[in-house]
């Protein structure tokens, strides 16, 4: 018995050491554990293996699709947090962009593109491009406030958060645009009876950003700036521009999330849509090993962090935990994740 315990301890010790070398290993292990639990909870009480697999697979597609929007935002949030910043305005930017998209493609009498005689695919493409530009402009604006205006990221984005949502709500009062069916295909296009599109966008963006973070000047400069801003500046890095670009990128990603969301449900609740999104995105990044102090964090980590939170949510749902209590579990995961990471560092 003693020896068994001894080897177990050794194994655990080795795992912890492996984690210290690459924090992804630990996160992946936690994720794997959750996947196993999720599989067990779903049970095997199906007619055949084929039926079981279909049910299992559908469940996964649902989990991933429901979290694709926040997942995309969390990827951008990772860059923001690595530079030592924070973006509280993502939810409001999402609503503002969403409102603009819907006003553009509205099939009713007041739809802007409709009035100009643009409909169908050209209208959707125009709306998407305008949404992306708008996300870029809003994000860049926030970035410039932080870098040129020298306002703390928390304050600048808190301000933007209030402004964007309030203005959107004001202008969208009593206006219920109708989203054309064609636009919904962006998120709801079916492949093999399953709706993959949001997941596809999420995964592609994650892969691209992973590459950007590791292999491009910008990606490396983001980490350098976050780890030691002064040293980066004295190495000829244009710190202001790197930071501004991080918020621009965040804006574009929020716009993508907004497009996905509008296309998924065909409407938007301007008061509540995206509220709490900033916290969910931050939680995913933190669970994935991103340091709030800056300088440390990876796209892969955040992607897995988002999955951990998503699976956890789904499990709580399956276990029948009352909805109000689920947020408490989310909070618990975040605190535990950071606690574990702290333990390993010492």
């Amino acid at each position, binding site marked *: 018995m003693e020896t068994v315990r001894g080897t177990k301890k050794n194994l655990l010790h080795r795992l912890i050491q492996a984690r210290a070398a690459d924090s992804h290993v630990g996160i992946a292990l936690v994720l794997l554990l959750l996947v196993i639990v999720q599989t067990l909870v779903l049970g095997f009480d199906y007619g055949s293996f084929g039926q079981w697999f279909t049910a299992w697979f559908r469940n996964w597609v649902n989990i991933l699709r429901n979290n694709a929007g926040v997942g995309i935002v969390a990827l951008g949030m990772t860059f923001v947090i690595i530079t030592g910043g924070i973006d509280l305005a993502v939810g409001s930017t999402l609503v503002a962009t969403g409102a603009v998209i819907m006003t553009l493609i509205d099939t009713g009498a007041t739809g802007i593109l409709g009035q100009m005689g643009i409909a169908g695919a050209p209208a959707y493409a125009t709306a998407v491009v305008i949404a992306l530009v708008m996300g870029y402009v809003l994000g860049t604006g926030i970035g410039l406030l932080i870098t040129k205006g020298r306002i703390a990221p928390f304050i600048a984005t808190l301000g933007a958060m209030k402004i964007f949502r309030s203005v959107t709500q004001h202008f969208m009062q009593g206006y219920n645009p109708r989203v054309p069916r064609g636009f919904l295909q962006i998120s709801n296009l079916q492949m093999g009876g399953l709706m993959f599109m949001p997941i596809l966008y999420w995964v592609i963006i994650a892969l691209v950003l992973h590459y950007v973070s590791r*292999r491009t000047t910008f990606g490396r400069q983001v980490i350098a700036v976050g780890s030691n801003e002064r*040293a980066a500046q004295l190495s*000829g890095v244009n710190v202001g*521009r790197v930071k501004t670009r991080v918020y621009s990128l965040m804006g574009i990603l929020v716009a993508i999330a907004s497009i996905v969301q509008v296309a998924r449900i065909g409407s938007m609740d301007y008061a509540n849509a995206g509220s709490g999104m900033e916290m969910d995105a931050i939680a995913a990044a933190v669970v994935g090993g991103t340091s709030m102090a800056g*300088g440390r964090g990876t796209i892969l980590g955040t992607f897995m962090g988002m999955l951990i939170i998503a699976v956890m949510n789904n499990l709580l749902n399956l276990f029948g935990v009352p909805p109000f209590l689920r947020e408490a579990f989310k909070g618990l995961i975040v605190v535990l994740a950071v606690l574990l990471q702290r333990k390993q560092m010492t």
Partner: protein
Amino acid sequence: MKNITKSFGTNQVLKDVSITIHDGEICALIGENGAGKSTLMNILGGVHQTDSGAIFLDGQRVHFANPAQSLGAGIAFIHQELNLINDLPIYENMFIGRELKGRWGRLDLAAMEQATQDIFDRMDIDIDPKTMVRDLDASYKQIVEICRAILMDASVIIMDEPTTSLTEPEIERVFQMMRTLRDQGVGIIFISHKLGEVMEICQRYLVLRDGELVAEGDVADVTMDDIARFMVGKALIIDQLTRTKNIGEEVLRLEGFTHAKSFRGVDLTVRSGEILGVTGLLGDGRSALFQTVFGADRNTSGNMFLSGKQVKISSTEQALQMGIGYLPRNRKENGIIKDMNVLDNASIVTWPLFATRGVLDTDKHVEIFQTQRRELDITLQTLMDPINTLSGGNQQKVVLAKWLAANPKLLILDNPTQGVDVGAKEEIYEAILRLAAEGMAIVVLSSEAQEIIRLCDRALVMYHGQIQGEVSGETMTEQHIMRLATGGILDAV
């Protein structure tokens, strides 16, 4: 302390070291970086525990599990980074953690103030205990720390390089205080790299090298050269280093370069292939001046010319593109990026230079760094190791390497050998000489007169933000530099 041994992992940093400190003496603890001074003192101060051996205090064997116990036994450790809270007055700082309290936990400010005043009277110090620590200069902060040690009835005070950030008159003030303490029977351990100070203030010396006590004795019996020899184990070279001089066109010219706070009316020129030294004491403004040249700050007036053409530089990125490099002082704060690996740290400057449409050319960076690694003799395991795993000297070489990769026309080196051991120092010097021989214009900022003399063709000495004078050839001596740096002028030669 008897037979002290200490290892970190497989690295034995102290090998059977025995030292004795008497009351009423100032004893110098000398050694190169990594010789084991800090570890030895951290054991005495209760920060680390010894592997074997024991500490005796007044003949009694003692054991310190933590700094509080050591302090309780009367051993005060004054660290290089002072432990004072700027926003509190002196007397509250004196009692931090042990505040005098009245009824209901109310702070007894009057009693604390009085106790502080008593100590100041005893030590003959003329400052108001109510002064905010923020408003004190570096020497008085040091003095407040010492007074705090006295307040705790310390019988041994360890001072870790107390004079590094002090100016000449400030150092004298701290020394005066140390003498007073010595006369009152306190034993002081003075850790310093400045041998001149050791000769001036200490009675005895202890020299550590590679974790062993290699020499000890009375300061009166030895010269500075002797101690320096004990430290390095071989005779120090003090002649000017020679190279093939290849001095060409003017690269940088400043005219009336001024920044409201840091420097005023600076005129200078540097030519290609030339090594210009700029020196002075703390607060001379040389770092601010050249950080401005490098675009990290803006000047308020004056003009800057690069290769004869007037330029305005508003960012470090622009400076880099114009062929200016700047190796910063304080490697830890300004030089290295701790969350990145060796290769990233060695290539950060050249990322945008070699990238194609933003994508890094990692192969090229590896190739360049491998060459530099041989040239600069950088010791490391793999390129992917965190930069922190390298020794100070190797870290500094990596920081130098990132600038060499950019091959600038003008390279500014700010304290290039700060916190670097003697061996690495020589290798960095060799690299600098090689670059100059290849035609790079080099500016060396240093507070070490010896470094300036050995390395530079001529040197400008700054004093309170202005150029006080220039020395070269015959006039480039430590005495002349010190005279200019303290605000004096050279007699007509």
